[in-house]
């Protein structure tokens, strides 16, 4: 079923809301054509439990953000995100993703 699909790289991060602008900047300048973001996620991790939605504070919540881009575009982004997480809290997951319309994710492949 993977025939006809193009291999891309999906990069998923969970970051503090105050780093959202910085991460979007990195996505954009790595050449990503889009992203998805889910606000006010809660969960538990290395640093303990994190509450989800705070009624009077959107700045200190957590975001789940991901983007899909070609593997060669992904490498600089991965490197930058690794450096980010040496300075800021957050996690990153890098996985392969197959897409049916590669031009949507890599402008170089646009007809």
């Amino acid at each position, binding site marked *: 079923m993977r025939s006809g699909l193009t291999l891309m790289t999906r990069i998923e991060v969970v970051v503090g809301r105050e780093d959202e602008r910085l991460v979007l900047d990195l996505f954009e300048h790595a050449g990503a054509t889009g992203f998805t973001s889910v606000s006010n996620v809660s969960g538990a991790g290395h640093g303990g439990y994190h*509450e989800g939605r*705070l009624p*009077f*504070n959107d700045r200190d919540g957590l975001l789940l953000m991901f983007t899909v881009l070609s593997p060669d575009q992904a490498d600089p982004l991965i490197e930058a995100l690794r*450096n980010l997480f040496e300075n800021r809290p*957050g996690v990153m997951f890098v996985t392969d993703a197959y897409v049916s319309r590669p031009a949507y994710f890599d402008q170089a492949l646009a007809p």
Partner: protein
Amino acid sequence: MNPTGTDSESAIDLDVDPDSRRPNTPAGAGRGDPSLRLELGLALRSLPPTWPLRTFVAANPLAGFEDRALPDALAEAAEPTGAYGVLAEREYLDLFAAGMIDEDALRRAVHAAVRAPGVEPPGPHDLVIDGTHLSWVDLIVADLLARPPLAVATAPRRQVSSTERAIDEAMSRWAAAYLDPHATWPMPHRARGFWAAWCRLVVHDPTVRALVGDTGLAAIAQLPAAPDDALHALLGRVEGARGDVLRGQLQHLPGWSMAMARGAREGVDLGAPADLVGFVAARLALAVATAERDGRAPTAAVSPEPDADAPQAVASQGDRARLVLHHVGIATPDGATQEAVARLLALVPSQRRAHVWQEALEATAHERLLARLATSPAPPIRSARSDAHLVCCIDPRSEGLRRHLEARGNYTTIGFAGFFGLPVRIQRDGAPTAEPSCPVLVDPRAIVVETDRFDPHWSRRQAREAVANNTLDAVHDAKVAPMSAFALAEAGGWISGVALATRTFRPTAWRRARRRVDRHLAAGITTRMDLDGSAGLGGIGLEDQVLLAESILRTMGLTEGFAPLVVLCGHGSHHTNNPFRAANDCGACGGRRGGVNARVAADVLNRFAVREALSAAGISIPADTWFVAAEHDTASDRVHVFDVDRVPLTHRAGLAALQADLAHAGAALAAERCGELPGAPAALTPVEAAAHVRERAADWAQVVPEWGLMGNHALVIAPRWVTRPHDLGRRVFLHDYEAAQDPDGRVLTTILTGPMVVAHWICSQYRFSTTDPEVFGAGAKPLHNVVAGLGVLEGAGGDLRLGLPLESVRWQGRPVHLPGRLLVVIQAPPERVDRILRENPVLHRLVGGGWVRLVTRSGPDAEWHDHRVSTTEEEH
């Protein structure tokens, strides 16, 4: 793709500002370097957060260092910023003499400084000299109190060479030209971004040509066209870690750097895209060019001019020891004694002395407040229904109004976030944009239009306004156009002269005349908050109205015992000629006035459908309760009530009585405030004081129309009976909280993660604007030049000034605001507080890192005690 929030408890649709997530890169800039962007983004964190002047929001200037403990943050921030977070020692001595610092607090601070964790034993010992026992603490305190103060080596101030200053002046002019959204002659090419525009135009700048020469300009012309590539190339020519170089460049012009990172995206004008990379590249290009012109390495230190204020001779340890011994009655000490004392005094190094004083100053204020709160009598058993509830913002100024109103009758007051829990943007009908009216911590989720279309006289008002606006536009255009300005002065100069004289010498009369004109334009017009989106824009659905209403009432703790009148009282400051007016407005409303939020909340809570749904949720609002919106003008202490025409006839008498009491309370508050306002006459009656503060607010030459949040130092989260017996001097944030009504801790979580964070920002802003006005303050108001709503310059050039103006925190060279950390006082079960701190990293960071001091008690029979948490290295 738009982000979607998912939360099983909230069905509020997100209508977040798409601009906040839309890329704002210059057209044609191309892809950048993610790693370079990351380093620049992280370097930007070391700068104080800033907002445009018209929505001034107080923020902690050291917010970028909050992941460290406060002492470490102060130490780390000192070198790049030149700020130390403490006053000059002589200022502490003056405060001690004035009784603002207790000697006991000073002794405790000395003890803590010397016996700090990690200090190797055996520690200091007392001395016995000539049979006299001398405590080591006494000796060090005597040293600190020595008068006249001996010259001590102070921490070196950050010095800037004349070359760097010249570069900064040039960059300041270019940034102002680029970012000005109202320029009569807009900067060419600016839509392509700063770097592209600057590269094309800098060759025509004679100041830059004089700075770097033709060779330097030629080198700049050879740099890559893309700003990322240009910055990359320049960083390759400079020694030092990239992050350090970038931070160093940003710290030269932190105000302009923050403005450049935002770009001119407010409103509909996107004519100046954010281009921080281009701005840093331009400054670094000039730095490199001047270094090469001088034949030095670009990052080699340029010897700054000597610090003229540094003490020329610093007292030796021996001098200090002799003075201290003389102070304790030993006039001729032997050498061994002198040496022993000198060793003791060295336990508090010169550069720690001011920090010891600062801890003592802060501890004095905190302990005095806690001692008073400990004496509050047990709450009375209330049987009679209040005549009215007054719900005010947590702002310290509200404490004064609440206290004076409570003294006048059967009133109950409540402290609550001034935006009344409404994450909204407000748009005046006909205005081009909707403005957020909630804390900057909160994403606006809905738009509410303030419309006058319901009024039958709407079309007449539109016509009058159109005439007035067209006239004003024509006058403005004539003023700024080169030739017509002279003609206008000839034709209409005498009118302006009369207006000028009236405004200067009869400010109250001028203001009355202006109001008459405004009323004529809007005669008989009333506005409504369009909750349902009837104007074709915005609105809040019924389900969301119910959710908001329930959240508002539960968070403010008003779920039963409703008075016939519940007044939701926002606040704002109505005065004139102050670029920093927004700093005196409501911080909870994003630097705007809170009356509109009060109107929206009152409308929601008066709706029958909403009350029906609330009743099903367990909150029954009596049929005879009416919510009214009002706004407290903190400059004149008048309270304006909105929408009086919609108040039921049955409540008009009660409202009239309340308004009369509010007027008296306001006048009494004005008299209280006049005792502290500079230049106010002494011993004014309330009537005289009310007239004085009105005149002050109308006086365009008045640099202190009110003191704003001067003196703020604590937030009390407790029932009103804990604070009601005490005059807190309008210096304490008050948020009502009843632990028994909040079994799962959700309300306390909301208060701590929202209002407490805002209060901490305000307290920090006031602190650092007081202790380090040159770095984190905005300078003196008479010298301000306003730059297109972005900020102010002090004088003709330089950086956009950050923080509060001098006149908000100092007067005649002395600190009026007493700097310190926010004291947070909570009456709640300690295990509940523990859990909330554990589950919310922002609180763990602020409390664990010592940015705020947290004190709790479980109930009226318990004692207040410091609530500590363990610090952690990482949050994930």
